[in-house]
């Protein structure tokens, strides 16, 4: 038994625990539905697909957030990057919609990266300011109302269409996860992100252009947020004010539950994906149980603290 535990890499430990917890959530939810309704909707492929489809938006945003957290930074501008990309994409419309949205994400990422890497303003406050500015721009652009323009056919197809019974949003999520996974594990840029997150001074002295690495990560984060926002607009057929607000804290939580160190330097992409699945399933099981909002918030918070206590503990600082 000990031999097996010893063979698990420390990085994989959180992923295994979180994965185990996903199974426990599913079993507990099924036990509940079996006793109350006598059916097990949670275990049907269709239900799981629908849940994962909704989880794809959070999943893509969380991947972007992870890129930034790996550096020990954070991006609080995700909510309005999502909304801004979705609103601009729907108002441009036509074939240019998705490139426009991605361009917004790129610009926001470049600007965030410039402020954090070159001006050296703490990301926590700089991205908060950028979020406020984006909100201001969108309120000025839309007049404070939900824009009347509709998402394009392509956006709707990507978000809610299905191929071979599998939601397209899942394919998008998987593709982005695959690309980022390869970038993190197999490219110099990915290695540079881990190095910079561990100790920026050391990375800089080893010849890594740490400022470019930071800008690059923020750009990826902006692009991911833009993609998530456009998918969400496609799913609900139009963009609306504050559409990204519900994605900020869960995306941080998903990244951390997946075993990424909040101070940067270590974490696996698989963990973030498992973290997102955990949060999405927890939410859906609680809503099947008709848990009131109060109970959901308490359980949600307790689960995060509980998971962290199992594997998120720091070494004691003694020198």
């Amino acid at each position: 038994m000990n031999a097996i535990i010893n063979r698990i890499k420390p990085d994989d430990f959180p992923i295994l625990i979180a994965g185990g917890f996903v199974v426990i959530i599913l079993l507990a939810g099924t036990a509940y539905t079996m006793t109350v309704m006598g059916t097990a909707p949670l275990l049907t492929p269709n239900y799981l697909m629908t849940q994962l489809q909704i989880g794809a938006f959070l999943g893509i945003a969380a991947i972007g957030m992870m890129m930034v957290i790996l550096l020990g930074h954070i991006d609080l501008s995700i909510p309005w990057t999502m909304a801004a990309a979705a609103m601009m994409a729907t108002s441009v419309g036509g074939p240019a919609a998705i490139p426009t949205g991605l361009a917004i994400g790129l610009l926001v990422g470049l600007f965030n990266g410039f402020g954090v890497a070159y001006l050296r303003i703490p990301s926590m406050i700089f991205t908060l300011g950028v979020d406020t500015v984006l909100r201001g721009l969108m309120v000025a652009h839309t007049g404070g109302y939900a824009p009347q323009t509709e998402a394009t056919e392509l956006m709707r197809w990507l978000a809610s269409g299905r191929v071979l019974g599998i939601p397209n949003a899942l394919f998008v999520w998987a593709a982005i996860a695959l690309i980022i996974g390869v970038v993190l594990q197999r490219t110099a840029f990915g290695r540079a992100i881990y190095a910079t997150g561990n100790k920026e001074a050391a990375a800089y002295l080893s010849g890594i252009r740490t400022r470019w690495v930071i800008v690059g990560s923020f750009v990826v984060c902006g692009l991911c947020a833009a993609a998530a926002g456009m998918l969400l607009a496609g799913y609900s057929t139009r963009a609306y004010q504050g559409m990204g607000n519900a994605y900020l804290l869960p995306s941080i939580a998903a990244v951390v539950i997946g075993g990424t160190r909040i101070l940067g330097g270590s974490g696996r992409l698989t963990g973030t994906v498992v973290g997102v699945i955990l949060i999405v399933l927890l939410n859906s099981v609680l809503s099947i149980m008709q848990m009131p909002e109060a109970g959901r918030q308490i359980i949600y918070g307790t689960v995060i603290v509980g998971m962290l206590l199992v594997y998120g503990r720091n070494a004691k600082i003694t020198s």
Partner: protein
Amino acid sequence: MRSLFATLGVSIRQNRGFYGALAMFCIIYFFYHVLHPRGFSTNVLVANANESVALAFVAMAQAIPVLIGGLDLSVGAVMTLTACIASGLLHGSPEQIVFGMVVTVLTGTAFGFFNGLVIVLGRLQPIIVTLATGAIAMGFALLVRPSPGGRVDGDLNWALTNSLREFADVYGLADGGRADWFQPVAWVPVPLIILFGVAALVWVPFRRTVTGRTLYAIGSAEGAAYMSGLPIARAKIAAFTLAGFFAGCGGLYLAIQTSTGNADIPQAGAYTLNSIASVVLGGVSLLGGIGSAIGALIGALILRVISFYFRILAIDPLLQPLVEGIVLLLAVSLGAVRALRVKNRLELFR
């Protein structure tokens, strides 16, 4: 005399951020009154003070964990929770009201203590623990007050949200506020007295204790603080407990001011984010070790005065969020001057 100036000079050099924030606040608030049609009057001062107190308390709550290099994402939620509790307790006999106040503030303090225990004993990162406990606090707030409402003693609301004259009038002190000796201070808004009173009675003495100084040591270099035998665990728990206490004070005042409690999740989030902005504007370093709760208080006042300007400058309401964001970005970018001046780039890295 000379030594006084010398001391002041050292103090200014050591607390550039704080004095800069204070100067900025004085300037923009002075011009606000100049531009206001009824400027320099008690009414304007009272109205402004009322709108600032809750955020100022939450900003002080945020400043203390930031000093040790942490961050408390639960301050807005704890404030909301305590406001919800207070909205149901602050009526009846004077004893009942006082009891309600004590329970409210103690709840906030206890929640902060719980945060501190989890962070210290669990050895977890404050930012992520308080993200989770913030959700727990919101859950309790929704349990206490599933829909907005509440009942707060009318006299209490009137007395605490007006000038000292009205306070004395309500409670029959100083001949109902008409005594001659009372006139020089009769214009002072009660909310400001509460705010600065709590700050002076709690934060200033605490800062002078060993635990208080340890906060700064942890923020500067935790390893060195440990090797010097400072009480690290105690100071960390105290930091989050105090944060809970100040958030509780903010919630208590919010409930008295609005006479209601409302478990509003977006509002709690907005208070938390504004508290971070206030802390930075008030000259507290997000890396820890530099600044004070008083600085964060000033930062909160600056943030509020900026929003007051929108009313008198007749800026298109649609452009207000944009102007607010740009001002915030510009204000925090002032700190970037240091980064551009530094000669050895290694000094930029943490």
